[in-house]
């Protein structure tokens, strides 16, 4: 079993839900990201997602767009992010998942990327704009390297397609809570619980919910029916608000502890 499956099995055993904080690697620079990940691991994160910045993030709202721009300005590349994972791996027991856009991963070549990711200890990869139909070689390469290709599903996904997705997904299924882009929202999307329980009827794969989740209350709400909650933009807001890395690490760490508290 991979590190991700292990983690969900442990959590289920304890009756807990997963808190999955998400950061853009290199925002504002890679050493800060390293400090932030270590702090989040300490503060109660169950899995950690690391975003690889892309010049054209067409699924992201303004917060993540700015975050990606800052990361690119600081010179962040996929190779740099892999190096970051290599540094973190011996210090972090939680699964580490990369999320990014197809052009960045494919620029390295499917097999080269899978081999390099395995080498540094990546546990899962989410590709925003690579549906299974287009990504067969990429997904096969990851699976051969023991890395979970994590798939996304959305409220517009038809039922027949959902069956295909849960069959192909590894690790967990990332359910996008709303039709739209990333970014904090005041209200949770309607029909979310029903959508997640429908997925549960057809598959035992853990289902985690992301997009628009930004408060402990929303995390607690998601925790009632899903296996985990992904929080990204709200963390980026904290990093953006802090003028220097020191205070950013403190506020992110406190916030992650609060979010995890809502899931215990």
């Amino acid at each position: 079993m991979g590190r991700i499956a292990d983690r969900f099995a442990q959590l289920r055993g304890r009756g807990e839900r997963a808190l999955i904080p998400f950061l853009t690697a290199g925002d504002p620079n890679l050493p800060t990201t390293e400090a932030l990940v270590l702090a989040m691991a300490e503060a109660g994160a169950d899995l950690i997602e690391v975003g690889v910045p892309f010049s054209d993030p067409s699924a992201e709202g303004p917060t993540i767009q700015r975050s990606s721009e800052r990361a690119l300005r600081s010179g962040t590349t996929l190779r740099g992010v892999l190096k970051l994972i290599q540094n973190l791996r011996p210090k972090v027991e939680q699964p580490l998942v990369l999320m990014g856009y197809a052009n960045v991963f494919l620029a390295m070549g499917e097999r080269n990327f899978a081999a390099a990711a395995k080498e540094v200890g990546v546990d899962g990869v989410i590709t925003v704009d690579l549906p299974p139909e287009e990504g067969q070689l990429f997904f096969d390469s990851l699976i051969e390297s023991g890395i979970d290709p994590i798939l996304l599903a959305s409220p517009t996904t038809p039922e027949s397609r959902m069956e295909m997705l849960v069959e192909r997904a590894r690790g967990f299924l990332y359910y996008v809570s709303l039709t739209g882009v990333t970014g904090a929202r005041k209200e949770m999307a309607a029909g979310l619980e029903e959508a997640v329980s429908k997925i549960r009827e057809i598959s035992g794969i853990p289902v985690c919910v992301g997009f628009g989740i930004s408060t402990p209350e929303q995390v607690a709400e998601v925790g009632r029916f899903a296996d985990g909650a992904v929080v990204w933009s709200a963390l980026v807001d904290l990093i953006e608000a802090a003028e220097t890395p020191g205070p950013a690490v403190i506020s992110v760490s406190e916030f992650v502890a609060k979010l995890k508290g809502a899931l215990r």
Partner: protein
Amino acid sequence: MKVAEIPGHFGEYGGRYVPEVLIAALQELEEAYPKISQSGEFRAELDGLLATYAGRPTALTFARRMTDDLGGAKIYLKREDLAHTGAHKINNVVGQCLLARYMGKRRVIAETGAGQHGVATATACALLDLECEVYMGEEDIERQALNVFRMELLGARVNPVSSGSKTLKDAINEAMRDWATNIRNTYYCIGSVMGPHPYPTIVRDFQRVIGIEARQQMLDVEGRLPDVLIACVGGGSNAMGLFHPFIEDEGVQMIGVEAAGEGLESGRHGAALSAGSSGVLHGMRSLVLSDDDGQIFEAHSVSAGLDYPGVGPEHAYLRDSGRATYETADDESALDSFVYLSRMEGIIPALESAHAVAYARTIAPGLARDAIVLINLSGRGDKDAPQVRDLLAARKSGSH
């Protein structure tokens, strides 16, 4: 269960590289498009609009003075500059906006660079009584203030895009974000033969009218097909519209002309077919301008319509198969040909089209006198007149 392969691939290119939330809408479009577009009712309505509104068929003009001046092949111009709104863009938007109406979508969004596709979309939406919102980079809004006014005059809302390089590629990203958010009631009217399947096919089909007309017109006038077709390539829609009906005519050579900008070696250009690599951008796999780390470059060209770091996937396929070839013309030669065609034929070409004219001028003198070259004059140059005036003035003062 086996994953079905997605149709809409051109060799290794094309496909549907989009976030999951867009998949269902693309499937809906893929199903609706052939049904609607092949219905007699839709065809009749579209043909009627093209004839009585868009000004089709457009003329085929023999460029007598240019032919004499170059001293080689006979040169003909397919006059898309005479279509309503001054470019071939209208063929596509009338088709797509009518399709939107048949699909019951009352809200249309579009991206625009210089504003040509935005103006065309706003025009078709006014005609067909559809709500229209256009995404445009902040940089472009500043450079093309007049087109912003034209869109607003036509009843469209222009939304400034401040992310990334604040140009066309970012406007496309923003339009995709809007579409993901408002997917249930909104139709995304893409401006060229690019984007996720089925867009490259839909836009090509609506632009094929250029080649279908030109082919018949050549047969009527010369009794035979041309030897060479030349068209500029930004996203590639005017070129694909001209080329596609000639693909099976093996004796007809097809040449697309990309923007070399300040020169291919300068890195400041828009030549994805000539200098790009296989990658994924804006929902398609195609040739794109991207660095070794997979980040997309900004494109550069004196003509805003060629200022795009990708290209339609079917062109990438035609390039690899050898059926079409792709060349470049730089900013200076396009500017020269803008003036040249104005003086020679009394036709002010769009700066985009001037790239095709520039390349034709390099090969026509070397061709036999009975050879025929057909240039797609994709648009008129009125929109570019203020910019060209400034560039020519700068050139003059620079040479002192």
